[in-house]
């Protein structure tokens, strides 16, 4: 921490704090209101009476969620997707980053290979070709369609690759002298030493899988198979009132039920909110370490 300087510095610091606090509130308050709405009576919400504290406190919305098969099903799909996707992503990222972190002497085609990977960041097949690839590989409508297309996260590979390159070369050399092979060096030396970078990538991976909704919409053939983010997206879009059939009038009460929507949004974002703080300290340190030691 810099010690307090002149008056100007102090004024700056006060203003800076006020600005940052305002910014933080701007992010937190909407979430607090959704939380308050989820605990309120639905008529109070419909009247717009709920600000930051529940009105007519009730747990009805949460009881409703526990009985909502589609919500629970989607939650299950997301858990499955995050677990599988996390495993596949992490293994492939490490396996790709390790060889690419070697010098040209050890791995002659290294530069070209890196460029091929970077190429996929800059140019993508686009929606339709990806869709057809998924369809023809026959993994449509399964959890594989959600985890395999993004199995190698090139951005994460480059992050980890740079981290690996900054590890002291002497470590690797001495291990070689002691008779270790590449597998041993990678798993026993490189990976344990890069925990900060790994934590960062873990966070990216988990949050990415948790939040991604569009692939669920395109690749899943039934709403029951939607992952949670896709389900939540269908929850918040407006109903079509045009040409509504009169038989559906009775559904309106349910559609307009904003309290249960709020509760589902809260439950849907809770796990990721819990994971974040634990990994965040690595997150900051990880990126700084990876770049400063360049």
């Amino acid at each position, binding site marked *: 921490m810099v010690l307090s300087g002149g008056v100007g510095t102090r004024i700056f610091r006060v203003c800076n704090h006020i600005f940052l606090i305002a910014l933080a509130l701007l992010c937190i308050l909407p979430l607090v209101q959704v939380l308050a709405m989820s605990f309120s009576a639905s008529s*109070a919400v419909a009247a717009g009476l709920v600000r930051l504290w529940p009105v007519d406190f009730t747990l009805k919305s949460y009881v409703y969620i526990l009985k909502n098969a*589609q919500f629970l099903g989607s939650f299950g799909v997301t858990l499955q997707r995050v677990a599988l996707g996390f495993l596949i992503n992490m293994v492939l990222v490490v396996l790709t980053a390790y060889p690419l972190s070697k010098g040209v002497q050890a791995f002659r085609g290294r530069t070209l290979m890196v460029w091929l990977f970077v190429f996929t960041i800059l140019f993508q097949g686009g929606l339709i070709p990806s869709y057809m690839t998924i369809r023809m590989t026959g993994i449509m409508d399964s959890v594989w369609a959600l985890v395999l297309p993004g199995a190698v996260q090139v951005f994460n590979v480059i992050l980890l690759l740079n981290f690996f390159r900054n590890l002291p070369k002497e470590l690797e050399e001495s291990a070689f002298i002691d008779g270790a092979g590449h597998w041993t060096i990678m798993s026993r030396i490189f990976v344990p030493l890069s925990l900060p970078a790994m934590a960062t990538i873990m966070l990216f991976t988990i949050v990415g899988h948790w939040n991604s909704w569009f692939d669920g919409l395109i690749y899943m053939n039934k709403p029951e198979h939607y992952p949670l983010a896709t389900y939540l997206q269908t929850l918040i879009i407006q109903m*079509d009132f*045009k040409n509504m059939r009169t038989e559906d009038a009775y559904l309106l009460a349910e559609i307009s039920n904003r309290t249960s929507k709020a509760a589902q949004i809260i439950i849907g974002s809770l796990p990721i909110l819990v994971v974040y703080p634990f990994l965040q300290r690595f997150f900051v340190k990880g990126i700084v370490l990876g770049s400063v030691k360049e």
Partner: protein
Amino acid sequence: MRTNTRRWAFSLFLAAALTTAGCSGGNDASNANAKSGAGGAGSGGTAAAQTGEAPDPFGKYDPAIEVHAAKAVNKVWKFLPGDDIANNVWTREYESELGIKVAYDWTAEAGDASESSPYNQKLNVSIASGNLPDIFTVSPTQLKQLADAGQLEDLTGVFDRYAAPWTKELMQGDGGISMASATFDGKLLALPNITANIYNAQVLWLRTDWMEKLKLTPPKTMDELHAIIEAFTTKDPDGNGAADTYGIALNKGLYGAIASITGYMNGFGAYPGQWVKKADGQLAYGSTLPETKAALAKLQEMFKAGQIDREFAVKDPNKASESFAQNKIGVQFGENWNSYFPLADARGQNPGMDWKAYAIPTVDGSEAKPGVPFPAAQYTVVRKGFKHPEAAVKLLNFYQEKSYGKTRDNAKYRSEVDAKGEKMNTANFPLVISDKPNAAVVQDIQNLWAAIDKKDQSLLTDYESAYDAYNRYAGGDESGWADVRQNGPQDSAFTVLFKQYTDDLNVNLFGGRTETMAGKWSALQKLEGETFTKIIMGAAPIDEFDKFVSSWNRLGGETITSEINEIMDGR
């Protein structure tokens, strides 16, 4: 060294294969599709033409055929235990009565039915990748696109031969405009999903407990309505001593089914957002006609007088609805079901509150002629090359017969009740749907009121649940309030629709998409919304309207108008 080189070459090959996989996959798909399309069309077409006498509209396939389909679903639909969209009363009857097995390739949430709704996004990807189901539902935009690309089976012949007389009657019940909209170059390429658009005619919802308090009577003319709006603004109808009420509710989209300006404008003989016939017989876009200007001028005046919420321009219908529950609004134009939402919620919060529906007043006190949308917003289509295009027509026959025909069975095909007494709307589950046109609906409503009047349930031809709700409400159960205000025999939105709107409705005459519309329509609609909002809020003078009309025409409106007139002349 040697092994190194070989490994390197292999890795390179793998990487190259990965980057090009998408492209080669694409070619295969379109080739395969083109091939099957050409072959199928030939065999399917001749098979239907060869048999001489008229085939049975309900004839059963033996052996059963399988239809691959896609459908928009809604997560709030309820099913009997063990049932789902692929296995319910309709799919079981399809198989046992018609010999048609429906296999859903995919289903997706219907959402808001806009281009970006889950169903439409999924369908757009399906269309673009050449992977169409056999029978599915499309929007007017998708219909035009598929028709232009020649990807749809011609249904002219099979409809003629297989449609039951009752089906033909219902499909022509709107004067034939929906069927005409599904016909391209003389070929029927789709079955329109017709709805009774009389349901979309707007009504005036008034807060009657405030009316009584201020001793006001229901309005016949727009001037009387303006007097009520003024009284609700200035005379403190909620009695809290603060000037915190507004006259009339608007939402930021201006149109729509809740807090809309459509009904208000209809009172001035203005029909924004719809294609109307001018005196010279040509179609014109209602938002650009002088009546709309007159109504906008009045709205601007009301906004200046504080009779409209200053923040309406940022409130969507949900947000605008909050002001009903907050006792801030007593007048709004909307649809017949507004009693369910949002008014029932508002009433839950304020027990003394009451709302009733009235006919739209007019400038001179004559009968209002409300504007209604085009009767078909969706179309059922058959993929080109599907071997049994007549199956779509048979499914339609079956739907209309079982829902509205002589053998109709509402307890089975329209609503089932599970063991716990919970009701589910089975009318949502069929694959091919097209509902009754206005004339048939009017009869059902009259039968409902006769049944209530004579306390005889056997007179009902529909609306069983409304009959139950009426008896509940008459017996003192408040939960029937929304039903009774919508469809009861007195003071309901339906009495307005079916007793007071007896003159012809002003139907939006064009429901499709033209070529120029594809690129320019959304920009024109944006221009319209922005200009109208500015005028109402007084940010632009009323003469801004004339400037809007000329830029609207210049930016493509004129071309679109002539395209539409050309299409209509051809019909």
